[in-house]
């Protein structure tokens, strides 16, 4: 066996060892995460909500989040009386799995039971929430790629101009709809949930400021401005005021939250 052959064999083995090790670690990690998840589920079933919440939260902090993890954690919060955190978790789960009927129905019933249902939802919102932000984005990207490929095909295999224009116009129309969906859903993505019971809306961002309204736990709000440890918010009923940073939880990471390079 030549030196070259030996070197090739060594490199191949090294490659497989590294890949195998990586896959093994991943699988082990996944297996560990699954075990923790099932343990938390058992604690929930047994009514040990504090333990269930602790395990779910630990899993989310170390391994990441999934729709099921957010949903189960929210169920635990809801049973524990933490309505705000439960709503935030369900909203988070919906971002990851917009089509999951379990999550959507549970969230709706929770809101209904706690007087948090929005009385009037605009048609625009109803249409936009048919899909999640990432689904609208993926659909828009798919359309863009499809348009590019169709144009490429038409370059090599010319088709009638009418057909080409019709397909392009159709794609552009769908793309515009998708972008509108992305815009609306991104605005929803930036919302936060009140997690403290009966939070006061203050007229100024400091502790001694006068209160104008009480905002219920679990209510969705939009963050307008942040000043020190206070945020200026408004909700779907047009109420506006400052609340402490500890009294709300953002649903998801937004562009503004991402670390700047």
């Amino acid at each position, binding site marked *: 066996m030549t030196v070259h052959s030996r070197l090739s064999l060594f490199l191949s083995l090294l490659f497989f060892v590294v890949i195998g090790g990586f896959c093994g670690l991943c699988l082990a990690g996944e297996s560990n995460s699954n075990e923790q998840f099932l343990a938390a589920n058992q604690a929930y079933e047994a009514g040990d909500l504090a333990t269930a919440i602790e395990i779910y939260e630990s899993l989310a902090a170390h391994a990441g989040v*999934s729709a099921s993890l957010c949903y189960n954690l929210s169920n635990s919060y809801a049973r*524990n009386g933490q309505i705000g955190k439960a709503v935030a978790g369900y909203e988070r789960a919906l971002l990851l799995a917009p089509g999951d009927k379990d999550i959507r129905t549970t969230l709706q019933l929770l809101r209904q039971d706690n007087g948090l249902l929005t009385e009037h939802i605009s048609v625009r919102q109803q249409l936009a929430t048919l899909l999640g932000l990432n689904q609208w984005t993926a659909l828009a*990207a798919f359309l863009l*790629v499809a348009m590019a490929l169709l*144009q*490429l095909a038409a370059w090599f295999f010319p088709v009638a101009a009418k057909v080409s224009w019709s397909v392009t116009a159709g794609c552009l129309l769908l793309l515009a709809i998708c972008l509108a969906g992305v815009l609306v859903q991104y605005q929803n993505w930036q919302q936060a949930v009140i997690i403290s019971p009966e939070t006061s809306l203050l007229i100024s961002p400091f502790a001694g400021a006068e209160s104008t309204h009480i905002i219920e736990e679990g209510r969705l709000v939009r963050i307008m401005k942040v000043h020190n440890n206070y945020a200026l918010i408004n909700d779907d009923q047009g109420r506006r005021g400052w609340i402490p940073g500890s009294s709300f939880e953002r649903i998801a990471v*937004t562009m503004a939250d*991402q670390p700047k390079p």
Partner: protein
Amino acid sequence: MERLVKNRHRCLRSGRLTVLCLTLLFMSLATVAESAPPVTVTLDPPSFAVDQSAILTITINDARGSIAELPEVDGLLFQNQRQSRQQQIVIGPHSSSVYSFSTMFEVYASRPGTFTIPPIPVMIDGQRVLTEALTVEITPAAEDSQTTADIEQLAFLRISPVKEENYLGELLPVEIKAYFRQGLRASLNSQPRLNGEGFVLTQPAEQPLQTQEMVNNIPYAVLAWSGALSGIKEGKHALSFAIDASLLLPSNNRQRRRSTNDPFFGNDIFAEFFNQQQVQEKKIQIVSKEMNLQVLPLPVEARPPDFQGAIGSFALQVQAQPVEVGPGDPITLTMTVEGTGNFELIKAPVLSEAEGWKSYQPSAKFTPGARPGQGSKVFEQAIIAKNSDKTAIPAVVFSFFNPESGTYQTLQSDPIALHGQDQNPEDQGKPLVSHEHDSKVGRQQPKATEAPEEADNDGHKEPETAMLNLGPLHVRLGALQPQITPLFTRLSFQIVVLLSVLLLVTLTLLKLRVSLRTANPALSRQQEMLCLLELRLQEMKHTREQGDVHNFLAACRKAMQEQLGLLWQTEPEAITLADLRQHLAVEAPLLTIFATAENSAYIGSTMSSQEMADYAAQVERELRQLR
């Protein structure tokens, strides 16, 4: 003597007559001289405002003449020259007619002040005559001062009386009325707003109530908003309300003041005929009279411990359902607070004896009444008795501060008796929650009247979950991701989109280029000629460097055929020397080269490298010129 006296009297009479005649003669001459100066100049009106104009009239009496030139006066502008001719007939023993020619100008001023129009030279029968100088007073435009006063009459705000002394957080109903003179064309640009600090104005209804009222026997259209003021800062505060509006007012800008007998400028026939009036939009801010309100702090003395900030006048109703329960069963307590006050800050009433009861967070629903601050707020709260010995729900208490009496008041409901389930079999048809659940965990739904869901897919019963309407747990973890971030923030997604966009743009540009070429065949031909020429020139250079005369001349011939073929729209191979002779001039170098190349094709030829270089240069130059 008598004769002497008579003669003296006669002399005196004749002298007096002479003096009288002479006096009359001089007077008549003076009158004639005064009544008919050759040129007169007048300004009507002699004084005017900056936003108005006047008429300058130069009249030439009983003669023909013309104005030599108009003086230039800084700040004054003379425009729109007009002329008129008038005839005046004098009837009497010496009847005569007098002609006068008038020239009129409109005079505008650019700024207020006193201006002098210098003597204006007029040519009369070849002689230069000067008019008198005129002094004119220009006053500032009276628009602003007048308009402000006028607008106060046209539109104003009135606020319903508000208590001068009120408490912190107390709701003060207020009615804001905007009055607009009947027939005035106005539009609102904003909702009423509060000027001043220490108070907030709850959002008044977007659509105001529209009525009509008479104020000092003048009819006004009235827009009324109902809102409520609430003091948020102790102390004395000066407040007023304001609203933005636009009024359409008759325009008086550059309004002409003309005499009624002015034949040219006096009447705007068309404006009168069509009844049109120039209007201008004026944006105004209508501000109400200032109010001084005192905000008092809530008294500390005798403040009930359960006081949570409610200020007003309220009534309390409490209901519980079901009242037939077993140990650990949830009871929905419905507490209705109704009346007038700051409902936004009202929190749920509390149990007077909370010990032995587990209470959950109440939900609240506010139903507004007819007037601001009026309404009812319904709280629904789930409670569970921790012990089985509870026979009644304790009294519910609600404390508030009554600003009318200046005291705290506490409302207390009656205790509600509870019955065990076995005691009243008739009520068993009522929907009740399950008895089997563990009361330590789980949050009860306020409307605890629905039957619980029985079991999940595995047949495992989840009593708490059923009561909370929660779905079953997910058993699969699913794919984990470190963060919930939008797809478009991921690099891979951005690369895919960028590539697609680049591809689309490139293809679009290419298609545009093709379509441009298709639309312009000359351009396409030119491009083709250039490409072919470059190819042949390369071939010529290559063969010249190899010294291959035969192929060099063949390349020259082919280059000429291709370029001329494209130019003449014929087949290149069909082009012969005869065609060249027909189309080109006799002394054209291409003729010689083409002939040499044709001869070489049949009989061959020899050429020096210098000749080949000359031929190549000539061919290139001539063929490039063809384009």
